[in-house]
C-alpha cells in the first residue's frame, strides 16, 4: 500500500550547518511511529520541514500522493497534516473553546462580510463549529473547561488542548512533538492511553517525537532514531532498545 507520508532524501542546511542529512522515511496509514534521538539531533527540524515551516535544502516530501515539498504551512494543514509543538503554543488569552474553534476557520466557507453581518449561512456554519468543538472537547475530557482562559489551565490539560486543537483541523496525519514533556509518571500513563484512544477514535496516523522512553517503547509500533541529523536505526521497540548504535548515541550525549 502506498505510504501516507514519504520523505525522500530530505536534507536541511542552515548556513554551514547540516541539521538533517538525507532523511528517508515512509509512514503508512494507521501507523504509530516514533522519532527519537539525542537533543539537537534534528527531530523538530524534520517536523518543521513536513509542515512547511522550513523548505528542505534537498529532497522531496510526499503526502497522500501529493508532493508538498516547500508548500505553505496553511496549505499543508488543509491537506490533512496537523502538529503540536515542543513548547506548547496555545492561544493563551483565548478560551479553551475558542482555541479549538480557530482550527475550523480555514474550513469556513462564508466570507468576511457574511461573517460580520451574521448571514444565515454563516450562522449555520458557526453553530456546527461550536457543536463539533464541544463534541471534541468532550471526547478529550476538556468540556468542563470550555469557557476558561487557555493560559490558566493546568499543564497536562494544556497539552491535551493543544492536541484537541490539532485534531479539529481534521487531519489524517498527526505530528506530536514531545507530548510527554514535563509530565509526571501518572500523567505520562494517561497520555499514552490518550494517544492510543485518539488514534483509534479518529482513525489517525501518528508520527511522534519523544524523549520519554516509557512512552516511546510503550506505544510506538516502529521507531526511527536520528543522531546529528542522520538516521542511524529503525525497528520495533525491542530491537531499538538493544541496538548498540542507539545506545552509543544516547550514552555519547550523557557523556558530553
Amino acid at each position, binding site marked *: 500500500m502506498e505510504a501516507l507520508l514519504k520523505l525522500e532524501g530530505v536534507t536541511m542546511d*542552515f548556513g554551514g550547518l547540516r541539521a538533517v542529512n538525507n532523511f528517508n522515511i515512509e509512514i503508512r496509514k494507521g501507523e504509530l511511529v516514533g522519532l527519537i534521538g539525542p537533543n539537537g539531533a534534528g527531530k*523538530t527540524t524534520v517536523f*518543521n520541514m513536513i509542515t512547511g*515551516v522550513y523548505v528542505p535544502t534537498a529532497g522531496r516530501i510526499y503526502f497522500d500522493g501529493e508532493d508538498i515539498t516547500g508548500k505553505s504551512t496553511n496549505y499543508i494543514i488543509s491537506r490533512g497534516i496537523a502538529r503540536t*509543538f515542543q513548547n506548547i503554543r496555545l492561544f493563551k488569552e483565548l478560551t479553551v473553546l475558542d482555541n479549538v474553534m480557530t482550527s475550523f476557520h480555514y474550513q469556513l466557507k462564508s466570507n468576511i462580510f457574511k461573517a460580520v453581518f451574521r448571514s444565515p449561512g454563516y450562522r449555520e456554519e458557526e453553530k456546527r463549529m461550536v457543536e463539533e468543538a464541544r463534541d471534541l472537547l468532550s471526547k478529550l475530557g476538556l468540556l468542563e473547561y470550555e469557557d476558561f482562559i487557555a493560559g490558566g489551565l493546568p499543564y497536562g490539560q494544556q497539552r491535551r488542548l493543544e492536541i484537541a486543537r490539532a485534531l479539529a483541523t481534521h487531519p489524517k496525519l498527526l505530528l506530536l512533538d514531545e507530548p510527554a514533556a514535563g509530565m509526571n509518571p501518572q500523567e505520562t500513563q494517561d497520555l499514552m492511553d490518550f494517544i492510543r484512544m485518539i488514534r483509534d477514535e479518529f482513525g489517525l496516523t501518528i508520527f511522534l517525537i519523544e524523549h520519554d522512553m516509557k512512552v516511546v517503547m510503550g506505544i510506538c509500533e516502529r521507531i526511527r532514531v536520528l543522531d546529528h541529523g542522520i538516521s542511524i536505526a529503525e525497528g520495533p521497540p525491542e530491537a531499538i532498545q538493544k541496538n548498540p548504535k542507539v545506545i552509543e548515541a544516547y550514552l555519547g550525549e550523557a557523556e558530553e
Partner: protein
Amino acid sequence: MDLTGFLQQLANGISLGSLYALVAIGYTMVYGIIRLINFAHGDIMMMGCYFAYFGILMFHLPWEISWIIAVVLTALLGVLTYVGAYRPLRRAPRISALITAIGVSFFLESIALVVYGGRPKAFPRPHVFDIEMNIKGVYMVSFTIWIPIIAGILLVGLIYLIYKTKTGMAMRAVATDLETTSLMGVNVDKVISITFAVGSALAAAGGIMWAVKFPQINPYMGIMPGLKAFIAAVFGGIGNVFGAMLGGFILGMAEILIVAFMPQIAGYRDAIAFSLLIIILLFKPTGLLGESMKEKV
C-alpha cells in the same frame, strides 16, 4: 554643473554625512545591545544643541567649555532615559519599549518647547568655524572642513573604545549574547548605561556641529536628522558600528548630490530617505554589513 560646483556639493555631502554618521552610531549601538530602536535619539541630539547654546549665551562660558559640558550633560540625559524609561521594560515585549521610546521622544520635544520656547534660536558659531575659504575656486566656510575632521577624531576614539578597551569588549559581549555575558559576572546594566552615554555623547557632538552648520535651532530640529540617521544605521546594517558610519556617509552624500543634480525633486527629499528605508527593509533588512537573525520554532 561644473567641476567646482560638484566639488562644493561633494564637500557638503561629506560634512553632512559625518553628522549623520555621528548620530547613526548612537542608534546602532543601542539597538545592538538591547534591540531597541531609540526613537528619542534625535531629540537627545537636539538637547545637546540647546545645552551648548545655553552654556554660551546664559552662562557665558567659552565655547570649548560649553560644548564639552553639553556633551557630558547629554550623555547623562541619555543614561537617564535608559534608567527611567527603558530599563524597567527590559523583560517586556519589544513593542512596549518602542512605544515608550516614542513617548520619550515627544516628551523631550514638548519639554524643550515649554522650557526653551518655540521660536528658533540662532546658534553662536565660534569664529574658527566661520572663516570663509576659497580653495581653487571652491567656496566654503571652514566648518565644512572641520566637521569631518572632528567627526573623524571622535569615530577613531570610538573604535579605540570598542576594540581596545575592556569596556568596549564588554559592550561587544553584551551585544552578542546578553544572558551569557551577565552569567559571566559582567555588570550588564552598567555596560548598557555606558552604551547609552557614549551614543548620546556622540549624538550631542553631532548635534552641536549640526548647529554650527545650520545655525538655527528649535525643539523639533532633531526629528528629521534623527530619522535619517536611523535610516542610515539600518542601511549600513543595524547593530554594526562601521555600518552606521558607512550608512551615514552614504546617506549624507546621496542627499546632497541627488538634490544637486535634480533640484526639481528637492521637496521630496524626505520621501526619498523614507523610500530608501522601506526598500532596504524589504529587500535586505540586514543592511550592508549586518547579520540576519531567524526565529526558532
